[in-house]
């Protein structure tokens, strides 16, 4: 009690000159660190994004008779490793983006609006977290591959396929954000998870698509197809097709556009 009285002589608060608007909309290392910790602590996220793709690789890539068969500039095990890495990265980045749904449902986004953190900086942190989680998913499967049967001719192929698989997850980080702003639910991933699995089949990540089949013709318009084709091409030696890039670019525009649309609606002052 006595301390409070002695403090009363001078105002508690800082001089106005010390109060500045934070640079970069409030973006800072502490925020990023805690956001990453949250993701890494989430057991369900860890199972679905890190453990499951790795286990799939071991089941469908390593322990099958075709694992050592030639797949161009490497073997089939490497092909499946790339598939699972891309799949893991896309699940991870979708989940990272979709975290906004939980935070909106819990009222955290509203709490943040009482701070200097700009909405754009907030979304940027979500994207960054999603991409880092995606990188981790790729890394886990590739390390697993390196220690098992996966084989590619050059180190450059390992790096190129990993980077493409990872970069593609940007599309799904945008997808996750879009869904996160669209669906007012704490369990967005349970809603869109099965959909992602279907997209993975259509993208040829689980079972290779037969060239020229009806399924393949439809599948090439689905969002995982372009990324899957681009990531596998360095290994298989398939000739590059602009259609793949167009597929990725088009879906990025759709998902990012959707995310921006919903984001604007969400942060609009009513």
């Amino acid at each position, binding site marked *: 009690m006595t301390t409070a009285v002695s403090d009363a002589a001078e105002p*508690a608060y800082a001089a106005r000159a010390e109060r500045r608007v934070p640079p970069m909309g409030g973006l800072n290392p502490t925020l990023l660190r805690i956001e990453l910790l949250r993701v890494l*602590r989430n057991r369900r996220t860890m199972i679905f994004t890190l453990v499951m793709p790795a286990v799939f690789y071991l089941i469908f890539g390593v322990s099958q008779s075709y694992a050592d068969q030639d797949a161009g500039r490497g073997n089939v095990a490497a092909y499946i490793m790339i598939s699972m890495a891309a799949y893991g990265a896309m699940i991870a980045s979708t989940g990272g983006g979709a975290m906004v749904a939980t935070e909106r449902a819990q009222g955290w986004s509203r*709490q943040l609006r*009482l701070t200097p953190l700009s909405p754009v900086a907030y979304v940027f942190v979500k994207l960054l977290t999603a991409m880092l989680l995606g990188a981790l998913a790729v890394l886990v499967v590739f390390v697993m591959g390196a220690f098992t049967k996966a084989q590619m001719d050059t180190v450059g192929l390992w790096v190129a396929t990993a980077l493409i698989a990872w970069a593609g997850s940007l599309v799904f980080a945008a997808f996750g954000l879009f869904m996160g702003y669209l669906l007012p639910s704490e369990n967005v991933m349970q809603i869109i998870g099965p959909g992602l699995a279907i997209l993975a089949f259509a993208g040829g990540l689980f079972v290779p698509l037969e060239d020229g089949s009806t399924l393949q013709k439809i599948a090439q318009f689905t969002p995982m197809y372009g990324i899957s084709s681009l990531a596998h091409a360095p290994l298989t030696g398939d000739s590059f097709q602009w259609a793949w890039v167009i597929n990725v670019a088009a879906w990025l525009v759709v998902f990012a556009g959707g995310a921006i649309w919903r984001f604007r609606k969400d942060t609009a002052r009513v």
Partner: protein
Amino acid sequence: MTTTTTTSAGPSGSTPGVLGGTDLAIAATGLRKDFGSVHAVRGIDLEIRQGEIVAFLGPNGAGKTTTIDMILGLSDPTAGTVTVLGQSPRSAIAHGLVAAVMQTAGLLKDISVRETLELTGSLFVHHVSVDGVMKRAGISDIGDRRVNKCSGGQQQRLRFAMALLSDPELLILDEPTTGMDVTGRRDFWAAIRQDATRGRTILFATHYLEEADEYADRIILVRQGEIVADGTAAQIKAMAAGRTVRATVPGVTAAQLEAVPAADSVELRGEIVRIHSKDSDAVARYLLTQTDAHDLEIESRGIEDAFIALTADAQDDPTTTATSGETS
């Protein structure tokens, strides 16, 4: 950026927004907010000076939260303007000048109390220590606890600690003790009150009358989106109900009773006079100086009665029920 703010000490010296101290904490004029055909706020004019502790008192749905949302820049007024410490609400938030404990704002459930505060603090250029605010909010012992393991009262204290982090000049509390038990409520207010001795401006919304009565310097009563009364707790009580002056006046005459100033109603039983008035001082002065009155008593009704009288529908005449039930 920094050079422009430091030039305030220069010869011109006329940058009130930067130096502070001269601006009103909150200035609102003609504030209105419509949600479709619902008029939530119907023209509020408000001036809150720095250092005041103000209660925003009214029943649920009176427009308290809607008004606070506009003060914080969470929503835009349909009409009217509001400035906070001489600047726009969003600018005041970005500079860390104003902080709030809101009913509707949530917490991240998957991080600890300390992490929540570290994260919040990291968003401000100027902030005080995490340990300090934990101590002031009375949550020093639960720093490592996950937010989802905290009780409602502890979460509310965490929100309070978060609001203290930026060391704000203006603190807004929207129904801060909702869901707390009596002890929790008392402790919470003790913490806030201790903090308020430092000169911080505090605006709190409440529908607990006793909170407004006990903790505010000034009460602003809102009903149906309008301010219906504004003053100290004592003034509010008097405004609604006035006071009853009772005295024993031997040999009182009808002429004397008619001459009582500011009387709303006069009652005579034997030698006992009961006068209801909004200016009890004038009545008492008259009785004591112009008549033989003795045993004079001035009775004030509780703020609860004032609240009910002022926030009840307009057709209910508050004075009709004023003096009944006190005759025995």
